[in-house]
């Protein structure tokens, strides 16, 4: 779908973007880096990160007094599986 207007992102897409951003940082990342990677505002990122922690896809840790989010095995599996689902859906013209 090649629309020029701002695209709507589903919740799953946002989760995948956040997790992918952490994965690209080597499996752990500070919120500021995730912000840029997932293209989200700070408030929305915090809300989604809380939900991801609840789902067991990431864990929150402290390093030098700052929050760091680490990808769990479940989170890693989610990202890998999401890529497959995205490819499958896109083959049929369905956008996630």
């Amino acid at each position, binding site marked *: 779908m090649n629309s020029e207007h701002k695209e709507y992102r589903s919740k799953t897409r946002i989760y995948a973007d956040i997790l992918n951003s952490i994965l690209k940082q080597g499996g752990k990342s500070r919120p500021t880096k995730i912000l840029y990677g997932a293209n989200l505002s700070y408030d929305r990122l915090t809300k989604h990160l809380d939900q991801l922690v609840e789902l067991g896809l990431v864990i929150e840790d402290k390093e030098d007094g700052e929050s760091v989010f680490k990808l769990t095995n479940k989170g890693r599996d989610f990202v890998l599986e*999401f890529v497959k689902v995205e490819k499958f*859906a*896109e083959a049929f013209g369905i956008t996630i």
Partner: protein
Amino acid sequence: MTFPLLTLLAVIMEFISSFISFLVGYYAMKGYRKSSLRGLLLLYWGFTILGVGILLRGFTITYVEIMVGHEGSKQLTALINLAGLIYSTTQVAAYAIFVADYALQSMRATNERNALLGTTVAVGAATFPVYRLFFIPWLELLAICMLSFVTVNAFINWSIKKTSESALVVSGFGLILLSHVFFLLLPLRETLLFVGQAFQLAGFICLVGMLAKVSRTNEQ
């Protein structure tokens, strides 16, 4: 006449096509569970219903040709007609779901697009009883119209994405569409049944090829 061998081939092709249809449906359901995308749920229902229909037809051919033989009585002809109607209806229902799926996607992108629906034309009956399973002209025409819509949309998707997966999907739907054209032309030549089935199977093989490519995504 070497019909039993051809029947066996026909049944095998039907069962393989049905299995692939279920496989694509299963993958769509797996994707739906992960993403909650309505489009994937529609794909699941479409391919599952299609798989059930093809399986039904496979079993009916087996029953008619292998168990009973094709020297049909009136009751047998009635049974075949009923099975053919059920099969064709499930098939049209499955294609209607695909049409709804693509229409949903098109509406997201462009807001409006009208689906074309077929007209009814009376064509002469097929000469051999089991052909009635493949040959209900107005339902075939409806299936062709719906699949044309689906194939054109799959082609548009491929022209935008240019991925090998979308190419396999457009090829798959295109070949299945051609199979229905051959089924519609059955009164001209009986062997077109097997040509149609071969095209149908080739279409499903394209879809399974797409699944194989998607499954290998993270290994590349």
